[in-house]
């Protein structure tokens, strides 16, 4: 063994990342990398056939995740990661499809696709990195910005009601719903592992610091200050009523796993229903004989 090899320190996530694309574009103090690390860790622990795992992202800071993960990965259009994933999953039901994108992408421009994929119980996992603003374009107000928070297009503070994402996901039909912050690294990993094993629409919201825009504009300090906020104000309440999960400006953050139930997914429903109505003439789709 050569001397330089002996002392070479490798990133333990190297096998899951496109190292030829590193360094990434995210700012110092950004929380997206933390979620990516958790995701890679969950993949490592899951022992799934990674050839069958696909990542689909939309547009935005988190939209860049697809470009760094070493799986079949698709960087699609703004808001359309979920329907893209629907096509991918239905095109080949053997695939495990993960949508990894931001709040603006998934519940802003892509909100309609989000509720419909949940309604159908499409078998995909949606990881939504929520940094409370549109960061890629410079910190504009989002559907998740807390009331009173300042944003570049809400220069006098936001006065619109934000979405409560776990409530929206549950009401729309999701079978797995969790919320964590970038502080809860191991719990995010565990949640991703659990959700990857589900056979329905799963949703994990991860609240992350946007230091460059959201925090700076609101004078909330740096990444460490935001981690302190998560530490002081987050409270784990598994099974909490999702109606109670609104987030106020620098207020309490209820986190945990809120929904974990079983119900037939889109493909199950299609196969069972058509099998019942059409009898033997119908050959179930996407099921290995």
């Amino acid at each position, binding site marked *: 063994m050569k001397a330089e090899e002996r002392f070479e320190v490798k990133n333990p996530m190297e096998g899951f990342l496109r190292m030829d694309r590193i360094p990434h574009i995210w700012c110092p103090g950004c929380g997206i990398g933390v979620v990516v690390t958790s995701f890679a860790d969950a993949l490592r622990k899951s022992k799934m056939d990674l050839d069958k795992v696909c990542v689909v992202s939309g547009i935005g800071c988190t939209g860049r995740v697809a470009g760094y993960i070493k799986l079949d990965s698709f960087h*699609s259009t703004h808001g359309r990661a979920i329907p893209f994933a*629907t*096509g991918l999953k*239905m095109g*080949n039901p053997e695939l495990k499809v993960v949508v990894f994108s931001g709040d603006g992408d998934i519940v802003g421009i892509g909100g309609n696709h989000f509720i419909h994929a949940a309604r159908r119980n499409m078998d995909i996992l949606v990881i939504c990195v929520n940094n409370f603003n549109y960061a890629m374009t410079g910190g504009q107000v989002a559907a998740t910005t807390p009331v009173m928070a300042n944003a570049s297009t809400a220069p006098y503070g936001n006065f619109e009601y934000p979405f409560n994402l776990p409530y929206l996901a549950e009401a729309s039909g999701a079978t797995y719903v969790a919320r964590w912050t970038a502080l809860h690294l191991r719990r995010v990993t565990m949640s991703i592992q659990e959700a990857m094993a589900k056979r329905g629409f799963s949703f994990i919201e991860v609240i992350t610091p946007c230091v460059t825009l959201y925090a700076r504009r609101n004078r909330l300090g740096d990444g460490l200050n935001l981690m302190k906020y998560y530490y002081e104000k987050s409270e784990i309440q598994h099974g909490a009523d999702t109606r109670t999960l609104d987030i106020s400006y620098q207020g309490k953050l209820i986190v945990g796993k809120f929904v974990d139930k079983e119900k037939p997914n889109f493909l199950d429903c299609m196969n069972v229903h058509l099998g019942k109505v059409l009898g033997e003439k119908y050959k179930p789709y996407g099921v290995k004989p």
Partner: protein
Amino acid sequence: MKKVKADPKGVLAGAHYLDGDFALAEGALAAGCRFFAGYPITPSTETAERFSERIPFVGGVFIQMEDELASMAALIGASWAGKKAMSVTSGPGFSLMMENIGLACMMETPLVIANVQRGGPSTGLPTLTGQQDMMQVRWGSHGDYEIIALSPDSPQECFNLTIDAFNLSETYRVPTFVMTDECVGHMNEKVVIPPAEEIELVERKWYEGPKDKYLPYKPDKDLVPFMIKAGDGYRFHTTGLTHDERGYPVINAECQNVCVSHLVDKIKKNADKIIRYEEDEIDGAEIVVVSYGITSRVTTRAVMQARKAGIKVGTLRLIVVWPFPEKRIKELAKKIKAFVVPEINYGQIVYEVERCAFGQAPAIHVPHCGGWVHNPDDIFKAIKEAAR
């Protein structure tokens, strides 16, 4: 290109009495399309209905999406999963599809969209005909790119050209369009569906080399890159951003130049192989009527009248509208007195004829705002004027 025979499961061989919309669905099934995502919109809905009725017995997926934005995104996903995918729509839905049509072009994804055109703009004439999306199909999504568009003039051609559209789409890794209209879509005629062994399909250009050497956007000799599908262990990346041969984003003018000129060149440089038109009595003609779709059938009567009146009229019917037969129009322009271009819009393809004629012969437009086909007399009148 590897050629294969159609899968008999999807081929409803025999002689049928079908409308154009149904024929589109049968063409798709015969071509091996096993994924359809769509949103209801008049006058195209019957295609989705037919597909949803037939697909359980053929083996595949029909999914009614929440809108056309989603339908298009789902098609791209399904195509990368290895399926032949199709959607059908009309004007307002077509506008919504433009976003992801651009993505499909950028990701070089084979898929087929049929547009059963109706009168616009906006909601316009939901139940009545138009040919007003002929430029939108060419230019509708932002940026520079090329697509292929065909225009059937009968239910039989709706069937035939949908198969051709899939073959072209797979050959060139490009979204391909069947631009029909309400009249053809709702017209019932005899449609003969040949047995599966007589339907020749083009297989996707699958990559077969070593996995670690695969580059999803490295052009082959014919300029079309090889394709793979998700789940096969390539761990590839694809993006709507300007990208290099690896599919990795590169945001600079040099890469943009390579990436975009590739998207354009792979169609432009293969245009002679793609272009198709039908000519009649073109030798010695003074006037050539250029038309497509339903308007070419209306033209037939006007041309008969003109010939009876002693005018030497030839016809050129565009079967493939995009890429446009630039060379042929240029050639004809040198020999003839004028082109007459009837179309159910306020001037779209006529500008292309005019451009390609390079001032050698005028292109006289016979406009129609939509809602009904031309009165053949108006076309006849234009031919007479042109011949004078």
